[in-house]
């Protein structure tokens, strides 16, 4: 009897291992969605609800209670924003935001990979919204992307994606953004950026834009030292502080002095 019981236990253990192994196999990500959402809900409550409200309902007027630095939370509703938005804001470090009145910028990512997935799953569950996009820049064309980027993006981000200014905000340089993040930002229009729907920029167009941004990070610089691809200001500085200094130095050497 004891031998059979031990064998049964062993078989049960093996079976359990096999089952959990099978569910783990597709990606290293597969926690049961319920438990991921539950973790997400907890993380949300602790880190996000002060601005985004209970259950992602949003806060249009500042809360009664002020948090650190005397800041009272205020933030948009997350219903229907989908996994796309949560994935973008968390992976870039835009969120959590220190103060709701500052522009979100690329910064430290506070959450671990699992925590991010949990939060994404939770936010995605708040209404129906777009899933995390899967862009394929290799399928796009840099040339088509260049034209599209010039028309729609260069006004803020500068034609070589070096970043730019618009009133009260910075349009950041795009060299650190991953293809997924670019795709997400284009569809969301975070902070003061306009958004571009699939009717305006199809997925294929978006692939081309992302391909162009990738190129702009390492473009053809056959003319030499690129000076950051921002144009005449650094060129003028070189004319004065390199050519000017060198040539004045040569005049000092070449000129004679009466004794």
């Amino acid at each position, binding site marked *: 009897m004891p031998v059979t019981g031990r064998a049964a236990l062993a078989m049960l253990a093996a079976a359990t291992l096999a089952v959990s192994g099978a569910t783990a196999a597709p990606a290293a990500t597969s926690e049961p969605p319920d438990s991921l959402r539950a973790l997400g809900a907890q993380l949300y409550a602790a880190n996000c609800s002060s601005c985004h409200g209970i259950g992602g309902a949003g806060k249009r007027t500042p809360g009664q209670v002020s948090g650190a630095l005397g800041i009272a939370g205020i933030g948009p509703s997350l219903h229907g924003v989908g996994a796309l938005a949560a994935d973008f804001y968390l992976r870039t470090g835009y969120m959590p935001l220190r103060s709701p009145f500052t522009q979100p910028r690329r910064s430290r990512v506070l959450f671990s990979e699992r925590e991010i997935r949990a939060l994404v799953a939770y936010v995605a569950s708040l209404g129906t919204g777009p899933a995390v996009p899967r862009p394929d820049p290799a399928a796009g064309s840099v040339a088509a992307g260049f034209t599209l980027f010039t*028309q729609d993006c260069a006004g803020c981000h500068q*034609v070589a994606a070096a970043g730019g200014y618009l009133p009260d905000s910075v349009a950041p340089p795009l060299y650190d953004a991953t293809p997924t993040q670019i795709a997400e930002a284009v569809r969301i229009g975070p902070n003061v950026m306009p958004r571009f729907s699939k009717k305006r920029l199809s997925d294929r167009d978006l692939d081309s834009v992302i391909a162009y941004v990738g190129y702009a990070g390492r473009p053809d610089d056959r003319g030499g030292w690129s000076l950051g691809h921002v144009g005449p200001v650094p060129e003028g500085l070189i004319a004065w502080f390199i050519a000017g200094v060198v*040539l004045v130095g040569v005049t000092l050497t070449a*000129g004679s002095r009466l004794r």
Partner: protein
Amino acid sequence: MVGRAKPQGVDVIEKPVRALDERSHTAPLALRALRYVFPDHWSFLLGEVALYAFIVLVATGTYLALFFDPSTAPVVYHGSYGPLDGAHMSQAYRSAIHLSFDVKAGLLMRQTHHWAADVFVAAIALHLMRIVFTGAFRKPRELTYYIGLTILGLALLEGYIGYSMVDDLLSGMGLAIGYGVALSIPLIGANVAALIWGGPFPGAPAFWSRMYVAHVFMLPLVIAALIGIHLFLVSSLHHTQFRGRGATEKRLRGVPAFPGQAPRSLGLMFAVFAALFLLGGLVQINPIWLWGPYHVADGTNGAQPDWYLGWLIGALRLMPGFDITVAGRTLVPNPFWGGILFPTFVFGLLFLWPSLERLISGDRRTHNLLDRPRDAPWRTAFATAVLTWLFVIFVAGSADRAYVLLGWSYQTQIEVYRVLIFVLPVAAFWLARRICVELLRNEDVVRDREDAETEARAAAQLD
């Protein structure tokens, strides 16, 4: 005599010189040219730097003109630069891309040409500063000075037209602004713009031919002629010189052109060539393939003109927003203040400077001796104030890049600069004058002390 005598060096050279003189009577001229006297200070070579940069401009520019096609005909690009494949552009832009990518040494010549333009204007600016700070513009050299200022103004125009001809996104935006500035001339702005452009922006196709002919032929001819007259005047009046070591208003001390000065000047010439070609090969400038072609509906953030027009973009950005209207008609559109009045005022001030100084100081004598900046505290202070004023406006022109790089709020910067353009020149004036006066006073003290010591020694010897 055993065999023929070995030819002496001077006889060998004398033969062709004599042959030439018999056919042109220019030997005395050559002798005067060879022994022309240059003053001994390095700052006299700054004008030469500008001249040598001009030579590079003409040489490289001629090369570029053999390839560039000033045509606005719309084409679709299918050349060797992939990211522009299928793009709609003008033939002018395409020929510039072709020159940069498919013509050997084409990009070197284009970049050298552009660097030469930046350095040409910078050299003129430095030279002008030397002239103003040492009072070299005084009688009898006012004419030389006016011609130099004209060359500066034409150089700005020439550079602007040159980089606008390429029809890339940045320079196209700059041309649109030029059009807006032309339109802002009170009463007749639209007529002037219609004349130059051949109609409303972007203008008739002939506008491109106009830019090309102006840039390649008309303006270089005028500039070269003015440089020639400028150099003639400089040589016929002879250079000015600094005081000291026997230099007087009547007698110029210095180094003759040959053999002393010639290798130095020629060396400087080749050094300028070297600097420009090294920059042209090693430091990228105006990468038009990265900007893309210009279209009326396109714009990019961070677009700037070449450095020598930075003062104008600063002025345009600093002006508060208003048009002056009169009975429903727009008398003074906004760009007029920064685009027309401001540069006219600055050039007008520079042109009037010798007359103003004569008027204020009452000094109408001939001057061949220069002042050190400290010797004329009021002039130095005023010139410093003007330079400070211009510098703040230049900085204001790139306030948006400063925001992106350093995080200083653009709106706050503009407010601050609007105050600084009044406050800083006054402060600079006061500071410069004090420094000059203190330096002079110190020289007096040192001289008095030396005199006293000499006296004391003489007295001691007598005892």
